[in-house]
């Protein structure tokens, strides 16, 4: 009898523990982590008959995450100091997104991205990623000129975003950037190309982004920097 009582008690404890875990997860609030760069609000915009928040997100891609080729410069020319520990370790010659690999935008907003691209590049393995997908109008601009893609043999990186698995939202964004004007002699400070594009942010949640240009080493160019979290990969927090 005593044994039975203890059996029932342990069963109750187990059920309560599992219940608490499930309850905890269901109450979990979504937060973007520290060091996340938030898009700046610039007012409202009309798009497809709907008034939306208009926000601008600015980032750059640089030839060296650790300043080997000069200080990474932001859009307005000020030093672009990475916020948070997003590029720890690695090789000073590795390229990186900066000032962060964590970006946040409001759900449903009209997001305009300004991308300063300073890195070298080469030929992409899959031409699909030399074209813009999921942007407003299916286009991007390169130094002010509207295009549907870039030269797949002279491209640098892509900003490719997809939602967490299991969300059937269909959100997909992939935008390529051309190589630095200095080509293989790219630095962090000169020869930059300015890429802009707009997209409509999806529903609240975590979206993963990565670069689909094989800019690393090893098999398929996806080793080293591409396989080290934080340089060519991160998260877009839709809040």
């Amino acid at each position, binding site marked *: 009898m005593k*044994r039975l009582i203890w059996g029932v008690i342990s069963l109750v404890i187990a059920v309560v523990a599992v219940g608490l875990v499930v309850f905890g997860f269901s109450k979990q609030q979504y937060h973007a982590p520290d060091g996340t760069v938030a898009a700046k609000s610039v007012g409202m915009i009309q798009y497809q008959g709907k008034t939306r928040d208009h926000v601008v997100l600015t980032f750059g891609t640089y030839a060296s995450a650790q300043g080997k080729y000069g200080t990474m410069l932001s859009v307005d020319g000020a030093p672009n100091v990475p916020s948070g520990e997003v590029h720890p370790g690695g090789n000073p010659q590795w390229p990186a997104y900066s000032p962060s690999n964590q970006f946040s935008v409001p759900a449903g907003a009209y997001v305009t991205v300004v991308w300063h691209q300073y890195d070298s590049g080469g030929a992409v393995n899959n031409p*699909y990623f030399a074209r813009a997908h999921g942007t407003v109008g299916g286009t991007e601009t390169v130094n002010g000129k509207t295009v549907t893609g870039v030269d797949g043999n002279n491209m640098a990186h892509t900003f*490719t975003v997809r939602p967490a*698995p299991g969300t*059937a939202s*269909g959100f997909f964004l992939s935008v390529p950037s051309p190589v630095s004007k200095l080509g293989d002699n790219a630095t962090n400070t000169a020869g930059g190309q300015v890429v802009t594009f707009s997209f409509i942010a999806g529903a609240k949640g975590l979206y993963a982004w990565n670069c689909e240009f*094989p800019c690393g080493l090893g098999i*398929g160019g*996806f080793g080293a920097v591409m*396989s080290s979290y934080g340089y060519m990969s991160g998260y877009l927090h839709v809040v």
Partner: protein
Amino acid sequence: MSSNHEDIKREQIAETVDGWTHNGPFHRRPSFRILILVILFTAFGVWAAVFFTDKIMPSILSSQMKSVHDTIIFFTILAAPVAALVYAIAAYSIYKWGHGHGEQAPPDGPPMRENSLTTSIWLGASTILVVVVLVWGMTALSSENQGQLRPVTIDVYGQQWLWTFKYPGTGVESNQLVVPVGRQIRFVVTSYDVTHGFWPNSLGVQIDANPGFKTYITADPNATGQFAVRCSQLCGLYHAYMDANGKVVTPTQFSSWLVSHGASTTSANAYALGGK
């Protein structure tokens, strides 16, 4: 045989084990209670197999997925009595023959080395189960690749960490997998970098995407609906995000989807509706 010798040993043990000798005449032997448990557990297993399989597996959108579901249900039913026997003996042993602190452990039972009936049933039943499972599995597997005249060919490219799909002859390339219902789909699968696993889950097929050469798999979608395309080979940093949207639509919807993605009406219709 040495049955006489074993009976004496059993009795010696029985005296020391609570519940073996002190029950009424009908419940004298624990095997009876264990049998009741086995029947209960088996009934639960069969019920779970029949009612839960559809709820925990991806939906059925092709004849291949139907056979995957049937296989899971059938194998679970076959496994139910075996699992039930193990759990019944374990549960009964823990409840009845467990011993607390300070109590003496009961002596071990006699070995059953020479019980040829038990051995034969054990071996025979295992053999039959394994052969049935093998034949069923081989049959299900071989039915997956029977070609049909004029299937719809879709080129599948895996790369770290996305899927892209080409619809040959239409010029359409997408990160979405859209297939028409009622036609056989032939997937031509390859990878740009490392090995990935192409797994359109509700279509019930799966094949590796290897760099440098092509693999083929066919599916016969028989219902419209949404599904997910996952990567089933651990492939690096964002393997967990290597996921694409899939849809089974009517051939007419398929054709208009192709047109909305840049195909000409002629090529879309020829590709989506041809070969009827």
